């Protein structure tokens, strides 16, 4: 067969991303199999890449123990919001279809090393993990479920903050979720917050920051205001480690930084200290 002849059966082209993963932080190529086996933690720079909510549920809970709650609570469009790129409702619907979750948080009951908990896991793919009214409602219902079942509440955050498309209603979810968390605490139940990359804006300034324990993944971005906004305000360049999990711990706002591989065992250990 000469070089210009096609082989009778061309091998199917394997897409690059199926073979290689690229670390979003240091851009190193890692074999996809090794990347997935390491739960998307970069072997070179230890960046903990973002997980989908289902991936994180699998990471944190006993196999088969997770049962979703309030799947019917989905996004709302209280402002009938439209911007130059179209209607929010259309974008949200497309996001639901793409991610398979109805909001930026997945909530449910589960066990962690046989300890029964109520768990919420945010998904950054859902409009940047933004805090919509559906997100707030799912969190409130999860908190009330924890109280009803007398179980600890655990929320893993991954969010850029409020959802602009829901305007003031999004802002009010900060108050609403904190009120629900306050009730969990009043009931004497543990509330553990896990801060993953990123946890910023209105989510860091509400339920993510008020855990009995605030646990962070290594190198996660954690902060209130955006780096660019701060740099413009103070007219200075900020150091690279600004608003990292390590920075946040050093300033007293995080209890412990736990590598992803050890997170489940760590949660079980501290829950046992809490009497479970």
């Amino acid at each position, binding site marked *: 067969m000469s070089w210009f002849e096609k082989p009778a059966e061309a091998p199917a082209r394997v897409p690059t991303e199926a073979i290689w993963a690229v670390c979003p932080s240091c851009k190193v190529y890692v074999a996809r199999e090794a990347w997935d086996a390491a739960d998307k933690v970069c072997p070179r720079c230890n960046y903990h890449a973002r997980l989908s909510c289902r991936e994180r549920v699998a990471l944190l809970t006993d196999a088969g123990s997770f049962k979703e709650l309030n799947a019917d609570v989905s996004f709302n469009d209280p402002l009938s919001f439209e911007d130059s790129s179209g209607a929010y409702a259309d974008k949200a619907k497309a996001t639901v279809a793409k991610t398979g979750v109805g909001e930026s948080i997945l909530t449910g009951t589960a066990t962690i090393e046989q300890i029964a908990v109520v768990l919420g896991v945010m998904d950054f793919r859902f409009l940047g993990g933004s805090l*919509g009214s*559906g997100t707030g409602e799912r969190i409130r219902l999860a908190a009330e479920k924890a109280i009803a079942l007398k179980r600890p509440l655990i929320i893993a955050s991954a969010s850029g903050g409020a959802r*602009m498309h829901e305007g*003031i209603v999004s802002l009010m979810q900060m108050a609403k979720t*904190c*009120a629900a968390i306050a009730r969990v605490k009043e009931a004497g139940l543990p509330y553990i917050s896990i801060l993953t990359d990123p946890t910023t804006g209105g989510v*860091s300034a509400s339920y993510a920051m008020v855990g009995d324990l605030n646990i962070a993944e290594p190198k996660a971005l954690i*902060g209130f205001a955006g780096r660019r906004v701060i740099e413009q305000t103070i007219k200075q360049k900020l150091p690279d480690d600004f608003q990292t999990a390590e920075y946040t711990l050093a*300033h007293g*706002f995080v209890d412990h930084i736990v590598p992803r591989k050890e997170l489940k065992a760590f949660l079980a250990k501290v829950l046992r200290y809490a009497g479970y």
Partner: protein
Amino acid sequence: MAKKTEKKLTAWDIVQIARHAERPNITDYIRLMCDDFVELHGDRLFGDDRALIGGFATIGGRKVMLIGHRKGRGVEENIEANFGMANPEGYRKAMRLMRLAEKYSLPVVSFVDTPGAYPGSEAEARGQAEAIAHNLEFMATLKTPIVVVVTGEGGSGGALGIAVGDRILMLQNAVYSVISPEGCASILWRDGSKAPQAAEALKITAESLKKLGIIDAIVPEPTGGAHIDPAATAAAVKKAVLANLDALCAVPLKTLVAQRYEKFSAMGQA
């Protein structure tokens, strides 16, 4: 020209009134509304934020704990007040004073007027997010009535950090928003000059927020805005605050706190 003032104001027009340099600020309201004010300084942890002040106040013979953002008048005073942008110690001072209010059975009156919490590197280091978050949690269960008045700019989390209450009142030309119209326009429209459109879309005016069930009542302003007649504005605010305090103080505390929870739980689930 008369015709123009009679025309319905756009959201962007109202933003300009809310930010007007001569708009009454908390210092004016204290002077015009209160029979007495004893400022209480400091968060007992770091310092005394001049962008968020508070203290014992007497309004129409009624003793309250007054807290609020502080904007200045003129450049010098505004620099001292950090243009009403509080640092974590401001929110922590507010919490300290609200704890005292609970202890002394004083209702809290909170005046909101801020472009937002201060976005500075020191603010981050001292836990701006934690300070606001903790206030939200704390105010949700505070066992004393809380009346909030949005008097000027209700700027996002920096506003909400002292705005969880049993009654949320808003001056007619105040605004309350998750993000500034300019910020929203530059992100979602990729063009900061589209701020007027963003202001409209975000529904940040008192009229819109009343319809959305976020605020309870609108306090009227003189034609043209509060700065036209600060005394009349303060009188209207005083009347509204006192009426709401009367109503709230009649409610048993347990019921009050339960109703506060229901109020915020309902937001976004209409």
